[in-house]
C-alpha cells in the first residue's frame, strides 16, 4: 500500500513529509483522532516507508490525490517491491511490532495470560515494547512499534514507557494510536509529536462503502455514511452489524410514541441493545457484559438521535419552524443526556424509561 492511499488527512501527510525531507523524524508519535479514519493504515504505511531500504519520490498524481497538491517539498513513498515492503504487507516484518491489548495471551507469564485483556497492562508493555526496544533491528534499518488503542494503556504502563518514549535507541520509532488524547498522561503525550486525524468527508465514506460492500443498497449506504460521522471503520462496523435492517425497528416507534406504548418501546429497545451488544462482543470477546451493553446502547441512541436530526433538518427548511423544530432539538438533547447518564453507569432500564417517557411527553405537549 502506498502512503498516499490514506486519503483526506492532509495535515498528517504534510507533517510526515516535512519530517522526512528535513531528515528529522521524531522517535515518538501520537496519532489521535476518531476511530476508523485511517490512523493505523497511515501508521503502517509510514512504518513501511521507514523500513524500506530504497524509498522513492512519489508520482505527481499520487500527491495530488491526497491533498498534498500545494506541498512543494519532496514527497517520499516506500518502493512497494522490496523484501521489506512485502514483509510489512504480509505483517511478518521482524522489525515492525504491532502492539495491542490482546497480546497478553502470548506473554510468558501464566498469570498475565489468564487475565482479561481489558486494557494494555504494564506486563504487556514491558515484555513486548520495552524489552523489544532493547534489541537491535533484525534487518538493519529501523524498528517500528505501532501501539493500537494506546489510550487504553494503564497509568502504570504509561509510566513504565516514559523512559523509552523519551530516548529510544536511534533506530527505534514508536507510534501511539489514540482516539481520545485526554486519556493519555500529559507526561506521555508531551514526549511525542502529535498528529491529528480528522473525520472523513461523508461522500468519501459512501464511495468506499460502495466499493467494499458492493451488496449494499444505495439508500442504506447514504444512511450509514451519514450515521458514521466521517469514520469509515465505524460505517463498516454498522454495516456488518446489520444496522440498516435494524434501524426501522428502533426508529419507527418514535413516530407514534405515546405514554401508553412507552413500556413496549423500552422493552424493544432493551432487546435491540442486547443484540447490538452481542455484535460488539463478537468483535471483541474480551469486553465485559456491561461494556458490550453500553456499546450496544450507544449505537441505538445514535440511531434515534440521527432520526430526530433528520426531522430537525427538514423542519428547519419549512416556513412554520416553531414548535416542531424545538421539539426535535429537545429530543436530541434528551437523548444526549441519557447517553451521558449511561456512560456514568446509571441504571440502563431506568434511563431508557425516563428517556422514552420524556420523548412521549414532549410529543404530546
Amino acid at each position, binding site marked *: 500500500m502506498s502512503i498516499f492511499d490514506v486519503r483526506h488527512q492532509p495535515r498528517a501527510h504534510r507533517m510526515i513529509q516535512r519530517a522526512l525531507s528535513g531528515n528529522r523524524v521524531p522517535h515518538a508519535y501520537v496519532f489521535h483522532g476518531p476511530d476508523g479514519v485511517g490512523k493505523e493504515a497511515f501508521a503502517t504505511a509510514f512504518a513501511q516507508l521507514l523500513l524500506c531500504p530504497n524509498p522513492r519520490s512519489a508520482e505527481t498524481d499520487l500527491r495530488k490525490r491526497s491533498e498534498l497538491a500545494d506541498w512543494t517539498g519532496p514527497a517520499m513513498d516506500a518502493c512497494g517491491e522490496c523484501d521489506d515492503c512485502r514483509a510489512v504487507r504480509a505483517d511478518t516484518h521482524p522489525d515492525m511490532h504491532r502492539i495491542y491489548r490482546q497480546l497478553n495471551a502470548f506473554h510468558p507469564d501464566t498469570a498475565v495470560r489468564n487475565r482479561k485483556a481489558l486494557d494494555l497492562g504494564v506486563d504487556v508493555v514491558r515484555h513486548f515494547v520495552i524489552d523489544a*526496544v532493547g534489541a537491535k533491528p533484525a534487518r538493519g534499518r529501523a524498528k517500528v512499534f505501532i501501539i493500537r488503542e494506546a489510550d487504553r494503556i494503564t497509568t502504570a504502563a504509561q509510566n513504565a514507557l516514559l523512559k523509552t518514549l523519551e530516548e529510544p535507541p536511534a533506530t527505534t520509532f514508536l507510534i501511539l494510536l489514540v482516539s481520545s488524547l485526554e486519556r493519555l498522561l500529559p507526561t506521555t503525550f508531551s514526549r511525542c509529536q502529535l498528529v491529528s486525524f480528522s473525520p472523513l468527508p461523508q461522500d468519501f465514506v459512501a464511495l468506499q462503502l460502495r466499493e467494499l460492500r458492493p451488496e449494499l443498497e444505495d439508500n442504506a449506504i447514504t444512511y450509514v455514511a451519514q450515521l458514521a460521522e466521517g469514520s469509515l471503520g465505524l460505517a463498516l462496523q454498522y454495516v456488518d452489524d446489520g444496522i440498516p435492517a435494524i434501524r426501522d425497528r428502533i426508529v419507527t416507534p418514535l413516530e407514534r410514541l405515546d405514554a401508553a406504548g412507552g413500556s413496549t418501546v423500552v422493552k424493544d429497545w432493551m432487546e435491540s441493545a442486547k443484540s447490538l451488544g452481542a455484535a460488539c462482543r463478537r468483535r471483541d470477546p474480551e469486553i465485559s457484559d456491561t461494556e458490550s451493553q453500553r456499546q450496544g446502547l450507544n449505537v441505538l441512541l445514535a440511531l434515534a438521535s440521527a432520526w430526530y436530526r433528520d426531522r430537525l433538518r427538514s423542519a428547519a427548511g419549512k416556513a412554520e419552524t416553531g414548535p416542531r423544530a424545538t421539539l426535535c432539538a429537545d429530543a436530541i438533547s434528551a437523548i444526549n443526556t441519557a447517553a451521558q447518564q449511561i456512560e456514568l453507569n446509571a441504571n440502563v432500564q431506568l434511563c431508557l424509561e425516563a428517556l422514552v417517557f420524556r420523548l412521549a411527553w414532549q410529543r404530546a405537549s
Partner: protein
Amino acid sequence: MKLRVNRHELAEGLAAVSGVTTSRTPKPILQCVLMEAQGDCCVLKATDLEMSVSFTVTQVEVEEKGDILVSADKLSQIVRESGDETLLLETGEGLCHVRGQDSHFQIYQQDTREFPPVPSGGGPADFELETGELRRLVGWTAFAAARETSRYAINGVLWELQKGHLSLTATDGRRLSHAEGKPKTTTDRSLRAIIPIKALNLFMRIVGEAEGDVGISVTENENQVVLRSSRATVTSALVEGQFPNYRDVIPTDSDKQADLNTAEFLSAIRRAALLTNDESRSVKLSFQGDELVLTGRAPEEGEAVVRMLAAFQGEPLDIGFNPVFLVDALKVVESDRVTLELKASNRPGILRCGPNMLYVVMPLNLS
C-alpha cells in the same frame, strides 16, 4: 522432498531448535521448524525473529531434495514417541508424511515462502574459541547481567575484541564481572558488541563439549551476532545502547587482601545468610588476623555467626555484602582458592579467581 533419518539424530536436532520455537506467538509460522534436505544432511531451522537457530542433522539419506515447514511441537512429539530406528519423511500435496515401521503420520505443511529468512551466518568467523574456554568465559559473566531493566545496554554481556585479546563484561549496576580470554584464531577486526544472555544460554545448551572450536562473528552492520559450532548456528540481534564505562568501576587502590578457600567461603556465606531477610539483607564480614567472622542478623529472628580461616593482610576491617551476590560468583568459580581485595567498608570489593577473572561487588551499609 524425501529422506530417511536416524530418529535419535532428528530428536536431538529438534530439541536444539525448540529453544526458539515458542508455543506462544501471535504469528503461528514461528512455531514451525523448517527442514532443508540437501546433499547428505538435513538442516533444521527455527526463529523467533529476534534469535534464529539452525542445526545440521547427519545420518540422513536424502532421496529427493526439498524443504518442509511443519509444526515443531508436533514433529518433536511424533519423533519422541516413535520407537523406530529410522523414520521416513516425505512431502506431498501440502502434507508432510512421517512413516515408521507400523505408523504413518500426516501433518499439514505451511508455505515455506512465508517463513522469515534465517540468517545463514556464512563467511569466516571474526574469532574462534575452544568450547571449554567459551563455557568458562560465559559462565563467569552471564549471571551478573541485568535482567529486564530499561537500561538496555546492561541486559547482555559486552564482548570486546582488540588486538587478539578478548574480554567479556557484565553488570547489573550493583556488581560487575569481567573475564579475559584468548581466542584461538582472530582477524584484525576490533569488536565491541553486547550479546543478549538468551542467545548465549541457548548456544551453550546446544553446543556439546566434544564439538571442538566455535566461531563467533558480528555482521557488517553490527546488528547481529553469529555463534557457530560444527553443527549448530545461533544468530541473534545484538543489544542496543552504550555499555557503561566499566573500567572506572574496578578499584585499583585496594590495600587489604584475603586469600580464601572457595568451598569453605561459599559454605560460610550460605550459612550466615540463613539468618538474613529482606529488611536486613547484608552479611557482615569481619577480617582480623587469620580469622574471618561472618555475621548474619535478622531482626526478630536471630543471629548467625560463622568463623573460618582466612589469610588476611592489612588493617582489621568490617564490611557488609549482599550474600546473594557473593554466592552467585562463588558458585561458578572453578579454582580452589579465591582472593578478596578490599579498601574500606564503604568501597567495593574485588573477588579474583586467577589472573583473568574478577568480580566487583558493592558493599552494603552496616549501620
